[in-house]
Structures are given as structure tokens and as C-alpha cells.
């Protein structure tokens, strides 16, 4: 099991920093998902680790060894590219075999190695094809096979499911964790799809403008995002964000939604009067029968049935939009006025000016509570 450490890594293009003083340490055998919007520097970071892009400053340590000055062929990493980057003039077999050829394996070893990994990825029947004769899914598997075949201790996967169809993406999302776990490799997996990130990562590093905005388990990131922008990246439908100015009284801190007080946990009276943003996950809101204590009245605007859930768009009394998600098939109001209750412990409060989370112990402890 090989560890990977990045120390104070920086890289800029045309004077604009793309990776900015980034430090990250990944345990041996861990799968770390690098998540972030496009342009966040994910691909550049992978290229820095692979050695095809040189850092302006900082260090890269693989298994404790400083490889910053090493050429890419000496680092012992495998990489699958988002655009597959197959060698167009070679057959799928030769594509996959290239790492073995580079390490001067015998003809029999090469054949056995390629066959084994091709069988695993179900492409053994197209090995003689040229890349242009392969479907996108087969290209993607060929690229993956090429990264895996040399059994590199470090595996870099640059959004490998980006260019494949939805069905295959779903299948691979199920298959990949098993495949990667069996290899025992340390994996960095880049993606822009939060579902993929949550499904594959032991930990997720959210990259934002060349820095790691948050590093944690998928649960931590989902339930206790450090900032509004991270909260917005995870979850479908996206989190409800309402501008509020909390009030404090001896009972606790309250924010007003539809003129009704909503208790906020995990922060003290100092937030009273501050301009804040209230974050409510759509699934933490549920419809209730009537105007009971703690209920929030809303106007139903529209309903969107998704496959496994139904999303309702409602308006609060202040005409602010609120998305409410419930499992498909459960009854809910389709028009008029309805009442909802909010899981107050899942509500998050962010500072409106900085976007940073205020307090925030509750969700973190909630995540730990769920894991236990």
C-alpha cells in the first residue's frame, strides 16, 4: 500500500494560479475523490502527480519518496484520461499492453496480463480492434485496462465516466469500487458528478480555485458542508438557500420561514441580527397534515416526479422558493396551501457575506451518529 503526499504544491498558467499551495495526504489503498466544478484544477493536479506537468513549487511524495524531479515514466503511476487518449494507430491489445512493453515483460507475460485485465473489464472480445472501431464504453474500458494492467501502486482516474452513456456509467459506478478495492492501489478519482463522488470515495476532497475547500468522508461533506458553495455542489435537487436574519431569545436561536420561527442548533446568540443564509436539504422537509405546532405554511407551485422521488416546488409566505423532496409513491399535496415541518437538526446556517458555515456541530455529530 503506497501513500501519496502533496506538499505546498503550486502551479500557475499565464500568471494565474491553478493549483495554489495545496497540501494533501492520501493513505495507502485509499480511494480519494477529487471533486469540483470545471476549471477548479482537478485535471492539472492529476497531471502534476503523474509528472507530465511540472509544479512551480512544492513536493510530491509517493510511498515517502520525493518524486518531484522524476520523469513520468519513473513514477509508477497509472492514469486513465477523460478523453481516453488511446493510441489511434495501435489495436486495443497493443494499447493495453503498452505499460507491460515499457517494463520489458516477455511476450507470454504481456499476453497473460492483457488477457486477464481485459476479461475483468469484459473487453477480451475486442482486443484486435483499432480504437476507432470501439464504442465509447469499450474505449473507456480499454483506457481503464491500460491504466490497471501494470498494477501501478498509484492510480489516477480523470473523470473516466464522463464520456460514456448513462447506463454504462451506472454499471461502472457499481463495479469500480470493487475493482479498485481488489487492486489495493491508492486511487485518486476525479469527477464532477456528486453521486459518483459519494459512491466511490473513501474520502472526498472538494477542490475550489486551486485549493482544497473541504476534505472529509462523503457523509461529512453532504451533511456538514463548510460553505454554501460546497453545499450547493452536493445533492439533487440542490439545497434550499434562504436569506434569513436569525433572532436569539433565551430558548435558542431562531430563523423565520413563512413568519414561523425555526430553531437553529449549534450556534450561539452572537449570530442574532447577522445576515445569514439558511440551508435546508429538500429531503429534510416533509409535508404534515395540518397547521400544528412548528408547521410552516407554503403555497404549492408545481410537482416534478423523478424516478425514485417526487420534488415539489413551493413558495413560502415571503414568496421564496422551497424545494421539497419525498419518496416516490408517497402522497402529497398537489396545489393550494400545505404545511411542512423541517428537520431542525439538519438545518444549516451560513454567513451571507463569506458563505462560510456558522457553528455546524450538529450536522457533523449527526453524521457520526449515523455512522455509529
Amino acid at each position, binding site marked *: 500500500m503506497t501513500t501519496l503526499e502533496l506538499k505546498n504544491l503550486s502551479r500557475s498558467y499565464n500568471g494565474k494560479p491553478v493549483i495554489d499551495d495545496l497540501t494533501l495526504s492520501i493513505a495507502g489503498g485509499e480511494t480519494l475523490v477529487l471533486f469540483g466544478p470545471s476549471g477548479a484544477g482537478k485535471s492539472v493536479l492529476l*497531471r502534476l502527480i*503523474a*509528472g*507530465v506537468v511540472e509544479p512551480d513549487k512544492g513536493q510530491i511524495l509517493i510511498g515517502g519518496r520525493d518524486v518531484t524531479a522524476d*520523469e*513520468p*515514466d519513473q*513514477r509508477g*503511476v*497509472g*492514469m486513465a*484520461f477523460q*478523453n*481516453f*487518449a*488511446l*493510441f*489511434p*494507430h495501435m489495436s486495443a491489445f497493443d494499447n493495453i499492453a*503498452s*505499460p507491460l512493453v*515499457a*517494463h520489458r515483460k516477455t511476450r507470454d507475460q504481456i499476453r497473460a496480463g492483457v488477457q486477464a485485465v481485459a476479461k475483468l473489464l469484459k473487453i477480451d472480445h475486442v482486443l484486435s480492434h*483499432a*480504437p*476507432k472501431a470501439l464504442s*465509447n464504453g469499450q*474505449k473507456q474500458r480499454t*483506457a481503464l485496462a*491500460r491504466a490497471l494492467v*501494470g498494477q501501478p501502486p498509484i492510480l489516477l482516474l480523470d473523470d473516466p465516466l464522463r*464520456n460514456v452513456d448513462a447506463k454504462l456509467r451506472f454499471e461502472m459506478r457499481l463495479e469500480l469500487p470493487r475493482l479498485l478495492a481488489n487492486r489495493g492501489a491508492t486511487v485518486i478519482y476525479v469527477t464532477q458528478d456528486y453521486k459518483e463522488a459519494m459512491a466511490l470515495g473513501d474520502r472526498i476532497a472538494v477542490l475550489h480555485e486551486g485549493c482544497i475547500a473541504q476534505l472529509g468522508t462523503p457523509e461529512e461533506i453532504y451533511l456538514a458542508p463548510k460553505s454554501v458553495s460546497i453545499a450547493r455542489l452536493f445533492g439533487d435537487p440542490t439545497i434550499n438557500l434562504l436569506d434569513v436574519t436569525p433572532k436569539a431569545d433565551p430558548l435558542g436561536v431562531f430563523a423565520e420561514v413563512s413568519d414561523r420561527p425555526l430553531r437553529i442548533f449549534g450556534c450561539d446568540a452572537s449570530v442574532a441580527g447577522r445576515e445569514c443564509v439558511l440551508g435546508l436539504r429538500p429531503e429534510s422537509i416533509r409535508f404534515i397534515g395540518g397547521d400544528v405546532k412548528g408547521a410552516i405554511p407554503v403555497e404549492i407551485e408545481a410537482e416534478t416526479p423523478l424516478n425514485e422521488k417526487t420534488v415539489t416546488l413551493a413558495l413560502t409566505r415571503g414568496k421564496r422558493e422551497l424545494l421539497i423532496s419525498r419518496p416516490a409513491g408517497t402522497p402529497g399535496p398537489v396545489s393550494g396551501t400545505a404545511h411542512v415541518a423541517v428537520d431542525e437538526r439538519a438545518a444549516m446556517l451560513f454567513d451571507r457575506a463569506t458563505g462560510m458555515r456558522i457553528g455546524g456541530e450538529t450536522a457533523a455529530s449527526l453524521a457520526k451518529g449515523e455512522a455509529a
Partner: protein
Amino acid sequence: MEHMSLTERILRGIALTLVVLFFMFPLFWIFLMSFQTNETILRIPPSLFFEPTLINYTSLITGELQTQAGSLKIEFMKNLGNSVLLSVCSVAVALVLGVPAAYAFARHKFRGSEDIAFTLLSFRFAPPLLVLLPLTIYFRQIGLDNTYIGLIWVYQLICLPLILWIVRGYFEDISPDIEYAYRIAGHSWFATFRKIALPLAGPGIAAAGLLAFIFAWNNFVFALVLASADKQPVTVGALAFVTASGIQYGQIAAAIVLSIAPTLALALYAQRYLVEGLSLGAVKG
């Protein structure tokens, strides 16, 4: 094409015919002239019908030209050999130097790289006559005038910029990720250049080489000034047919046919490589 009306098709046909006639007629006429004697060529009015003769070709190949004024020795076959030698060697040298340079310019943005590339291109802008006078003096001083090496060196002015700029574009079209993938697989940069960049830019290199060959083959002024009779290519050698006893039109025509034959054959042969697609579908899309 199917939506085209009859008139459009007719007009299109006429336009195409005119273009083809415009470009092909001189070649066709020269081809006919090469099978005629000076008398039939010069008769008025000219006619498409004549008694074909192979005398022009035989005299070119044997090197003996019989005229009214007597026998004249011509060096045409030697000139043809010179043309082949000069063009092949020039293109070979230009490929050996130009392809790695093109790769460097395409992949590595070093200080002044654009300036150097542009300077090389500017060799194509300079009028050859401007360069020739000082060059003749220098070549005489260092003993390179009237040598094959000297000529091949000067021909780099024609071939090198052409190959450099065309091949550079082809290298730039190759996704760097493909090369990165090969490096990461564990290959050295030189193996990557040889096994990935060269084969993928192959059609482009072939096209550039062919073009450079044609330009080198057609060059006239460098060889005229820098070489004497025994080193001259066909373009200059054809001047020998302008003799004191008259211009040998038949021989000139035959010499032209013989001298465009190799480039034509090469172009036809290389055509299928030239039209071959560059990126063979490895990258998405």
C-alpha cells in the same frame, strides 16, 4: 448535389471544363510537342495531327542530338540524375533536421521559440537573387561552390521552412494526452516521439516531404548560379537546348515530360497517404 437544377449542372460542367482546360492544355500541348520534330512544331497553323516520332526521346537518352548544324552533345540524363540526387538528399536532410525541430516547436514553448520559427519561415520570403550574390562569394571562399553538398545546403532554404511549418501543424493536432498516456505507461520521451508522434504525424510528414521535393525539383536559380554544367539539375540543363543553331522545341518538350514524370509519379503514389485521416478516432468525437 441532387437539388441542383439542369442549368446549374450544365453551368457547373462548363466551369469545370474551362478550369481543367486552362491548367491542362499547356501540359497536353507539351506532351504532343515532345513527339514532333521542330518542323511540325513550328508550322503555321499548328495542327493536332502529325506523324509521331520518338527522335526527341532517343536523342535525350543517348545524349546525341542531330541537327542541321551537326551533332550536339547533351547532358540531359546527367542533369536528370543530378535533379534526383539533389532533391532526394535535400528533402532527406530537411526531414532529419526539420521534423524534430517541428516537434520541439509544437510541444515546447521555450523562450524565443516563436521568433526562431518565424525567422525560419522568413527564409521563404527573401527573394533568392538577393541571397545569391553574397552566397556565391562565400561559397567560393570556403570551396562549396559547384559541389553537391553546397547545393543541398542552399536547398535547405527551400525545404526546411516548408517541412518545419507543415509538420509542426500536424504535431500540434495530436492531443498531448495521447503522448502523456504513453509517457505515464513507462516509455521515455524519445520512444514517445518515435512510436506516437511520428506515426500519427506520418501523413503530414509525407505531404510536407512531397511538397518540399517538388519545390526542390523545380528550383532553377540556385543551381543556375551555384553549379556548373556537370552538377546542374534538369531545370537548368534544359537551357542547353537553346543552341546557336536554333531552339530545339521538340527536345525541350521531351525534357519537360521526362522531368515532370518523377514528381507526378511520386504525387500519384503518395496520394493515398496524403488523404489518410490524421486523428484516427482515438479521442472522443
